[in-house]
């Protein structure tokens, strides 16, 4: 029961921050896909950089465990391309569609119904996909520092430098 309350409260804060960051809107999401408005990229990358530092810090202190997903090139690449096509049509992500509804953009309802349909279709085709696409290029639970054989802080610092350079470039170009 506690777990459900934590989930709900975390979701409320998350939705609140998404709305404040103005990243839920169709116009912002399409703006990023059209490379004319980088608001959501700024938001997401800021989230990733802060979370990357915090989670690895806690991990080094032995307070948390990482939750790695398997890298399966077949699923990741083909799934990513398919997701991108759908995202371009819909203009909301699975998580932000609920937020869009929360700020009154009720076309998100059609997207949510579509996403439930997509999930059901995936469940129907899963046995086939599991024996084909989801077998292609399965590298298991790997990490970038793991593959390169370097300390994770080297990668984190490089990501931060890369991220801040990108932010500066966005601001210079007023994206």
């Amino acid at each position, binding site marked *: 029961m506690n777990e459900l309350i934590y989930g709900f409260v975390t979701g409320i804060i998350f939705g609140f921050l998404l709305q404040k960051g103005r990243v839920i809107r169709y116009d912002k999401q399409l703006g990023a896909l059209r490379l004319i408005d980088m608001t959501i990229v700024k938001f*997401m990358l800021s989230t990733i950089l802060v979370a990357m530092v915090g989670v690895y810090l806690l991990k080094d202190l032995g307070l948390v465990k990482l939750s790695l997903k398997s890298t399966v090139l077949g699923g990741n690449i083909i799934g990513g391309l398919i997701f991108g096509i759908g995202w371009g049509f819909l203009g909301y992500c699975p998580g932000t569609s*609920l937020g869009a509804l929360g700020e009154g953009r009720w076309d998100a309802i059609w997207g949510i119904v579509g996403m439930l349909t997509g999930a059901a279709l995936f469940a129907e085709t899963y046995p086939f996909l599991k024996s084909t696409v989801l077998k292609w290029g399965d590298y298991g639970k790997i990490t970038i520092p793991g593959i390169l054989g370097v300390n994770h802080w080297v990668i984190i610092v490089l990501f931060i430098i890369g991220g801040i350079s990108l932010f500066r470039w966005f601001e210079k170009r007023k994206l």
Partner: protein
Amino acid sequence: MEDSQELKGWSPYLAGALTGLLLVFSVWFTGKYVGASTTFVRSAGFIERVFDADRVANLEYFIKEAPKIDWQWMFVVGIFFGSLISAVTSKTFRWQAVPTMWDERFGPNRIKRAIAAFIGGTIAMFGARLADG
């Protein structure tokens, strides 16, 4: 209109960084990493179960991601309320059936937008699940 809305938000860097902190605290206090798309699988299972309980009980993917209300399910519902609270308190809540940018390009037809959103949602979720994202 759009300009007055622009003024009411926070910097995406600030809101994004605070979201990063939220994720760190979530992992720290509850061990939970955020996600959303598994919730759509569980919910699809809930709905399908009404019509064909046997099928849901026997489909491998619905066994793997069983229809149940868990941490992530509540998280996704919470997003709706968090956004609602933020939008209402900042007066940026707006009923809109067709997004502005869509309207400029494809016109104000609600049915056209609904069809594209539905098809887009279907494709996007299929891809998201395939990529395990």
